[in-house]
């Protein structure tokens, strides 16, 4: 196997990290919507905190993307 083929396989493997990010974001947003449904008065605060959490959960996918371009 030459180096180029290995790099392409590595690029494919890197995208696997997006599984975890997707699961995490879905869980986070679902829980936040549940909390908003229970307590609509707090929805503004919950929404900003949810956005921060989503950005944190997304960062693994972004690392994978950067690694994808670097390989």
């Amino acid at each position, binding site marked *: 196997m030459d180096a180029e083929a290995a790099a392409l396989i590595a690029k494919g493997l890197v995208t696997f990290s997006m599984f975890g990010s997707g699961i995490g974001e879905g869980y986070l947003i679902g829980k936040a919507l549940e909390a908003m449904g229970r307590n609509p008065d707090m929805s*503004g*605060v919950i929404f*900003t*905190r949810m*956005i*921060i959490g989503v*950005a*944190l959960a*997304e*960062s693994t996918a*972004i*690392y994978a*993307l*950067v690694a994808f*371009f*670097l390989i």
Partner: protein
Amino acid sequence: MWFQLEREIPSLTSDVLFDFGFISISSSTLLIGVILVLLLVLAYRVRRFSIVPSKFQIVVESLFDGMYSLLDTITNDRKVTEKIFPIVGSILTFIAISNLIGLIPGIEQLTWEGKELLRTPTSDFSTTFSLALGTVLVVNFISLRKKGVLEYLNQFFNFKGLIQGFKKGIGPGLVSVVEFFVGVMDIVGELVKVVSLSLRLFGNMYAGQILTIILLGIFSLALPSLWLAMNIFVGILQAVVFASLVTAYYMLAVGDEEELEKEMVS
């Protein structure tokens, strides 16, 4: 021609335009300079605001109010917001403008002697890394000044807890050894903050540019415009996320004690 346009994918590093001794001015540095001049003009206009507002004044004031209420939801305290607003607000404004300025048509297509003249600053890793490093250093410095040198170092090297644990006996002593190593790991945590803040902003903006170019190759009439409209949203969202994470780190480093004091009083 209507359906497929080929463009070069931008490189990770930006082109160096000219050198001043050991300082080299690259295309992203030039656009940072342009943005700073724009902000200076804006500051001059803002200083001349009157009691009877013009349309421009209403827009600026509502944006300002929005930033304030955003920070309020994180800090839960107007006084803390007022204290931290000068740094976080200016970071937010700078990142938002530099994310959005690349969307002006033609601004990234300007060339000078075969090199690109202006490049979105946040799609260059050196810009985002220095922003993140600067903010994390400032947060640590504020925490150092507020807690004093000894207590600041005690966060990371918890010798006091170690000694107290072993005075109680072997069992609590071993637990305090584990806690000591957790404290040492917090140093790594501070470094990871810098990396994650900078990579998130850079990754989003750079991936946005690359996706625009890929979409230009698929259906260049309609698809890129949809994605560029999405980019307005992404640019503002990333600026908001950067600013609110900096505020959250500030609250983690400094705010704990204030909240504790309040709970003790009430």
